[in-house]
């Protein structure tokens, strides 16, 4: 009983807890994102991209392009303007600091991953064999993102509905126009599976 009482006293005098996961700059402002992108940017759905571990340069470019209407999205345009007003640098740093857990979403067709692997060499020229990209050339990391999100982006490139006129994206759009839609789904399945 004496031991228990001492423990109780210890509990009673213990001060406020150490800094919590929401105490970092940008974390409170990023909470509005978690409705769709998951807490800490760990999206678990098929269509919303994972923001955890995202390179700050890529996050900021995406936000700026959405806000300017270059990446037309009725969902993201209002939120991108909100992020710019509430501090894009802090929010970008917050998401970049989160450890990424790969998407749990599996493609509808399990064979798609292997078909995608066989066709993925065309992506590796820019994104590397690892698929991790090259920040110095403005090439993003593809790995572990949800397959639905990757597929949708490739289809937007193919139809030139993502950032039309963006010089940096010329090569990827030219490539996408040569790839049939079914193979785009296979590539999405493969890169989603890469860790």
């Amino acid at each position, binding site marked *: 009983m004496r031991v228990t009482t001492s423990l109780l006293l210890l509990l009673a005098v213990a001060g406020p807890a150490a800094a919590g996961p929401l105490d970092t700059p940008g974390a409170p402002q990023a909470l509005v994102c978690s409705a769709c992108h998951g807490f800490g940017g760990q999206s678990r759905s*098929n269509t919303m991209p994972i923001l955890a571990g995202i390179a700050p340069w890529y996050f900021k470019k995406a936000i700026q392009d959405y806000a300017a209407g270059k990446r037309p999205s009725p969902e993201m345009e209002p939120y991108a303007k909100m992020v710019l007003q509430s501090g894009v640098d802090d929010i970008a740093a917050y998401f970049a600091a989160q450890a990424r857990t790969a998407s749990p979403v599996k493609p509808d067709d399990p064979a798609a991953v292997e078909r995608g692997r066989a066709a993925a060499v065309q992506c590796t020229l820019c994104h590397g064999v690892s698929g991790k990209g090259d920040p110095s050339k403005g090439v993003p990391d593809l790995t572990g993102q949800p397959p*639905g999100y990757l597929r949708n982006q490739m289809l937007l490139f193919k139809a030139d509905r993502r950032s039309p006129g963006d010089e940096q994206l010329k090569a990827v759009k030219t490539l996408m126009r040569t790839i049939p839609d079914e193979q785009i789904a296979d590539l999405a399945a493969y890169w989603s599976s890469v860790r």
Partner: protein
Amino acid sequence: MTQSTRREFLRTSSWAGLGLFAAAGCAPKVADFAQKPGRRVVVIGGGWGGASAAKYVRLADPSIEVILLEPNKEFVSCPFSNLVLSGVRTIESLTFNYDRLRAQGVKVLHETATMIEPEARRVRVGNDALPYDRLIVSPGVEFQWDQVEGLAAAQDRVLHAWKAGPQTVELARQLQAMPDGGVFVLTIPPAAYRCPPGPYERTCQVAWYLKNSKPKSKLIVLDANPNLVSKAALFRAAWANYPNIEYRGSNKVVKVDPGAREVTTELGDKVKYDVLNLIPPQRAGTIAVTADLVGADKRWCEVNHLTYESVKHKNIHVIGDSTIGLPVPKSGNIANAMGKICAVAVASLLNDKPVPTMAPGNTCYSWVSDREAIAVVNSYKIEGDKVVQIEQKLTPGQSEAWAQNAVGWANSIWQDMLG
């Protein structure tokens, strides 16, 4: 929880009594309720707002004890429940338990809060009392049964299906049982009510079902408002595919006679029905009214836009559909956003830290058929201590792609609120 175990919990929930069990690290379930002095948050209501708030108080400061009072054992999502009427989704696919919220350290009690004592900072649960340091009230809406003559006495027969659950399933059953050639009447209350586009999405889903399964049937929509309250042009475009819809604006229903299967409008028009879905006028959940949290209108609660603290009572915060005065819709997404912001504010206040400036956002999809959706998105900022809108954006039309995004949104936000 039985009456006796509940009493036992409430009686032993003084921090010292329960600390014994907690320190011993073993023992009965009541040990979970050990209270640390000055660090307890009680949340009333485990819907979109309350569940989100409870989870995020724990995330913001795991040393704060959080007790969630929610009478229902399971959460049923109102968003997507119109798809149960058309048979596109099952109610089971929208039903979740509170286990993952418990895994976040939230103590979920399936009990009804009966009274709030602001001065004593206690919530009454039956004859027992639960002390709090900060209280978050998220009671949703209650129906104003007395606003429609004959409705109070016919609550069991006249369905609202505006709180997803057994009524949703029963309305779907009645729709399926209706003979081809029958008339389905949907009535819409005056704004403000929960989910502004909800009745128009429901119109689409019922019309889609009738078009495919009962082509000789008709859907009459009696709207108390002069025109569609939300996404009007997009819904009107979708309705072009449903000639079975007869929409009548400025047709407030004031009387229902279930015996004669007839409703009467303010203008005196009588409309016969085979199946009726009467969505009654609404106000803040009852506990908000009895606790004097509502304003002069006796319907809704005014709050501080940064902390969601009631303007009427200190240490009590109100979130979700019960609030008024912010330029936001009464939606699940807004309640989720308010829950998170309020949670961070409450954790900050309990730690004597400045409250971060945070504004809500709203993403709202509506299904216009079995496979296509439309959306409206609102973002906000804080300006002069008030929430103001930055922008509202609508989808340019309807598409399967937005329906896929709707599914992604639902899967994400259910997880965001429930763990």
